[in-house]
């Protein structure tokens, strides 16, 4: 999905920000839609470095100028550590682009696959063996 679609996705998004600690323990297919890939660009506002999944919250600017909060599910902290991502790798306030899959309930929640940092560096943030499409970076 191109960045041009970011605003469309953001505009369609439902729900409000999730401030409470995320609470999910599930297979990919139980919560996320493999047929709804999306790309989100936003500033990191909150990182939950917790088991069973790390969560990255970002603030996405919509086309109309308003902002909305999204929460992005990552792999387990140990999985991320093995890929070189620790809880300090992405500072709060940093702009990132996330490629992932939208929640089935169409809330502002997604399963993250890749994070692209402002310098172009790409990090794989997902889990393997969860049933997510193309475990590992998605083929283009």
């Amino acid at each position, binding site marked *: 999905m191109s960045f041009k679609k970011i605003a469309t996705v953001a505009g369609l998004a439902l729900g409000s920000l999730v401030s409470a600690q995320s609470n999910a323990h599930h297979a990919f297919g139980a919560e996320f839609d493999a047929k709804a890939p999306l790309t989100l660009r936003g500033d990191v506002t909150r990182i939950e470095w917790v088991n069973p999944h790390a969560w990255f919250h970002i603030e996405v600017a919509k086309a109309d100028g308003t902002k909305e909060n999204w929460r992005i599910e990552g792999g387990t902290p140990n999985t991320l550590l093995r890929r070189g991502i620790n809880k300090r790798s992405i500072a709060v*306030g940093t702009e990132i682009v996330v490629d992932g899959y939208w929640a089935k309930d169409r809330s502002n929640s997604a399963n993250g696959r890749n994070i692209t940092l402002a310098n172009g560096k790409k990090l794989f943030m997902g889990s393997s063996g969860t049933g997510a499409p193309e475990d590992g970076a998605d083929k283009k």
Partner: protein
Amino acid sequence: MPPSKLLALSLLLTLAACSPSEQATQQVEQAESNAFKLSGDVKHIMQWVLDPAAFGVWGSAGSIITAAGTRELAPTTDDGWQAVEHSAAVVAASGNLLMMPGRAVDNEGWKNIAQGLVDAGLLAQAAAKNQDSDALFDAGAQIYRVCKACHSVYIRGDKAADSP
């Protein structure tokens, strides 16, 4: 000798007189006639026993980072640690609950994973008892590895009805 001891002695003598195959048959019969009374299926254990306990462990280790700073999730009081120890003990006990007749889906695979859950729960229990937040975080990761190993084998499809 008290009657209860006489009964136990006679049972031991009876068992000793049995061949291995007879003993196995007796164990099966004993399991079938034991006092277990299932209060729910595997989903029930997951939803009402294991999940809340596991999240009790997971929610008590790690960090929340915002612009305001970093908040560590580890308990800061003895009561808080005791609550985590309680959750961890329930996780460990859940492994045994999953092995009860009527819940176990197969023999070796199910048993190994369920025993792994007991071990992971006991790790978390020890970490909480020692008020060791790093060890608790690692034990939480171990609990999830067991969950994932089990789900990868025994969960079928995305609908709860498809699985045990």
